[in-house]
């Protein structure tokens, strides 16, 4: 399709949709307006009924925990799919040679990059753990903490190089971590069903709002999500970065 035909096609489609757009636009809710009463109801009830200050965590891991379990398994499926497609010969060895792009030298990390990565890496990991552990009392939670931890692993790659990174981030451990996290979440959900209670009933003591230990079962689910997301993203990075190594058969 030539660019001219494409633009003509876009113009025709835009003309067809434009009247409908102008018809709908004035009836949109105002910016920042939330007409559904559900949000207000949860915001009012969660601090008392669930002893949780972070309403988002209460929604994700308790009120609508069933939806989050589905999302958790979407992530698991996506990472499994990437692993099935990309796990192969290339880059499996931790000492695998980096691939060469024409006209671009392969340089070892400079000392300053190593220093900054070592300092920042520790800080990012601690921040990720803190974000995750304070899920019920401050903004953040298992998913956010997990991705921050996984991005801290990337700083290890930046500072220590591929070999050092592969030495720390073991593929088997991260696979296990992800599967364990997803399983912990599912067990928390279905354990209630086995003894005749509703799905994901919050049976653990709730504690008092504001404490790290507030939230009951939410804390266990949060730990599971942290493991699953941290491990899942680490596996994802691992599989993609293995692709930047040379094939073992192509060693000259």
């Amino acid at each position: 399709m030539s660019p001219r035909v494409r633009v003509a096609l876009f113009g025709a489609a835009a003309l067809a949709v434009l009247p409908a757009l102008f018809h709908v636009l004035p009836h949109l809710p105002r910016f920042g307006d939330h007409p559904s009463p559900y949000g207000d109801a949860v915001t009012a009830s969660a601090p008392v009924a669930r002893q949780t200050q972070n309403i988002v965590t209460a929604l994700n891991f308790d009120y609508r925990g069933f939806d989050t379990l589905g999302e958790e398994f979407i992530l698991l499926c996506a990472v499994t799919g990437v692993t099935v497609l990309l796990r192969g010969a290339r880059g499996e060895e931790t000492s695998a040679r980096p691939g060469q792009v024409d006209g671009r030298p392969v340089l070892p990390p400079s000392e300053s990059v190593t220093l900054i990565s070592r300092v920042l890496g520790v800080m990012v990991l601690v921040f990720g753990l803190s974000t995750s552990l304070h899920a019920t009392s401050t903004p953040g939670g298992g998913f956010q903490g997990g991705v921050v931890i996984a991005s801290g692993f990337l700083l290890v790659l930046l500072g220590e190089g591929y070999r050092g990174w592969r030495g720390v981030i073991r593929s088997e451990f991260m696979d296990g971590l992800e599967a364990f996290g997803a399983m912990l979440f599912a067990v928390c959900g279905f354990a209630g069903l086995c003894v005749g209670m509703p799905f994901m009933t919050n049976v653990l003591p709730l504690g008092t709002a504001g404490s790290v230990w507030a939230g009951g079962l939410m804390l266990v689910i949060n730990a599971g999500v942290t493991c699953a997301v941290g491990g899942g993203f680490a596996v994802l990075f691992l599989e993609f970065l293995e692709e930047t190594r040379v094939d073992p058969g192509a060693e000259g």
Partner: protein
Amino acid sequence: MLIDVLLLMLAVTGTGVALSRQPVRQVIALGANGLVLTLLFMALQAPDVAFAQIVVGTAAVPMLFLAVLASMKMDRRPEGRRE
């Protein structure tokens, strides 16, 4: 005011992503777009989404794209047959 400025920056950086023709530049533009989106989420008092956005939008997704681009550009011919 702050939100207006951020929305404008979001439009500018988003246009930048659409208009950059070179894949590597597009990845960097995407990262800039993600960073502005993070600031907008902060301004709209949604720190939870902002946390996820800053890591996924400015670190994870660009990194995966860069890994793919590097892998595609690599010379995969065996050593002996290189010209």
